[in-house]
């Protein structure tokens, strides 16, 4: 592999995404792309006692499902990269503690899934591993509890607020496969444009997405039309509009082939999710469910997946800090 331009890595032996798995909650099951998910739950507790346990179970079962689907014996998987939104990433570390695979816990807020894909494919291309798995999860209820209010509190959500996706996605990367291939990685810089409103994460993250997007085009010499689809992680409806505007102001028109996982996963008119979905599980499940299927069916031949994250927590928000954003991009081609 080789670094090209200012911050993009070109993989010499492109890494194959062998298999994916996704499990989502009941609300996502009513969304427009529900049929692409491997499993939809009808109860957000999934038989567990707490939201946290439920989220752990979701990521655990998603990872197990991905391993089973890939037909690679678990002992042949070298490393696992996983993360989530809860404090100290307990969903993934508790959910995956019985996995018996060397584990890297990672945190990139909602960009975690693509951060995992980046690190995993570097590992594989650099001969440090043959097979790795990357996973991320989030749960509406555990996230509300940690970042906002108790579920039963009778508050109103402003129109810019986003809905944390209950769900997880997992991808199995392998060295010698037939594709779809991860060909380029553009890790993002932390970008903070001073947005403080934690009910407007899309606006906080859009500048980071723009930075990574432009850098990717510059480093690779590609243009927006090179891709069949440019998909951001969870900017939502508000953030999507903003990114459209911002990239146009920088001379790149992405309108025709751009979409967002947070926009795709819910039906804005029917599901009352305001600005759309968010959370680690949003990008992870939409990629593992919908996008991977489109790649397999060859409906999309080249996609640029840019997962976005808001690097904030409840304490920093109370202390009046602004919300730094980050975005990591991977280019996936068949």
């Amino acid at each position: 592999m080789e670094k090209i331009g200012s911050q993009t890595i070109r993989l010499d032996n492109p890494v194959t995404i062998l298999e994916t798995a996704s499990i989502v909650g009941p609300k996502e099951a009513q969304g427009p792309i529900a049929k692409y998910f491997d499993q939809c739950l009808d109860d957000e507790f999934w038989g567990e006692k707490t939201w946290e346990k439920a989220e752990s179970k979701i990521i655990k079962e998603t990872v197990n499902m991905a391993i089973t689907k890939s037909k690679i014996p678990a002992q042949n998987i070298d490393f696992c990269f996983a993360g989530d939104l809860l404090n100290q990433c307990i969903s993934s570390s508790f959910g995956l503690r019985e996995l018996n695979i060397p584990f890297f816990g990672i945190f990139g807020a909602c960009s975690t899934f693509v951060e995992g894909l980046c690190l995993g494919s570097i590992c594989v291309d650099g001969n440090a591993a043959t097979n790795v798995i990357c996973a991320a999860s989030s749960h509406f209820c555990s996230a509300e509890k940690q970042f906002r209010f108790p579920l039963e509190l009778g508050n109103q959500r402003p129109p810019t607020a986003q809905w944390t996706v209950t769900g997880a996605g997992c991808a199995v990367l392998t060295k010698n496969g037939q594709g779809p291939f991860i060909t380029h990685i553009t890790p993002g810089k932390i970008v903070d444009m001073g947005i403080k409103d934690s009910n407007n994460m899309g606006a906080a993250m859009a500048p980071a997405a723009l930075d990574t997007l432009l850098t990717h085009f510059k480093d690779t010499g590609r243009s927006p039309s090179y891709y069949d689809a440019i998909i951001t992680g969870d900017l939502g409806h508000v953030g999507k509009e903003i990114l459209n505007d911002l990239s146009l102001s920088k001379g790149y028109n992405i309108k025709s082939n751009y979409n967002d996982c947070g926009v795709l996963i819910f039906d804005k008119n029917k599901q009352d999710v305001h600005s759309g979905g968010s959370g680690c599980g949003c990008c992870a499940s939409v990629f593992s469910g919908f996008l991977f299927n489109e790649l397999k069916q060859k409906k999309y031949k080249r996609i640029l997946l840019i997962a976005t994250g808001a690097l904030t927590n409840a304490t920093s928000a109370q202390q009046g800090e602004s919300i730094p954003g980050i975005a990591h991009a991977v280019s996936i081609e068949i």
Partner: protein
Amino acid sequence: MEFFQNLNWMMLLKCFIVGGLICIIGQLLIDKTKLTPARILVIFVTTGAILGGLGWYEKLVEFAGAGATVPLTGFGNTLAKGAIEDVTKFGLVGAFTGGIKAAAGGIAAAVFFGYIASLISKPKMKKQ
């Protein structure tokens, strides 16, 4: 039945309008300032205590009854009124005892019912 026949409908109307208007102030705070629910409740209770201390809130209570006592400003008024009442009876120590004494019913009920609810009920996902 006799109670309903003698119900003061005019008072009920005033109560509805004043209570509703106080809630509109709260709604404007929610929509225009992005304050969290906790901050809005604090603003209302403190405002009520100050207006109560000045003796102004009591006039609104006389005019609108529950329309003024049920919103959280009324809770603040009750606290302040209780403090003043006990100060006149017991002096300085009354400032410390009067407020909570007057609001004791509400506070104790909220704590107790909150505990009971946590025993028998579980949070559920918003289904909207």
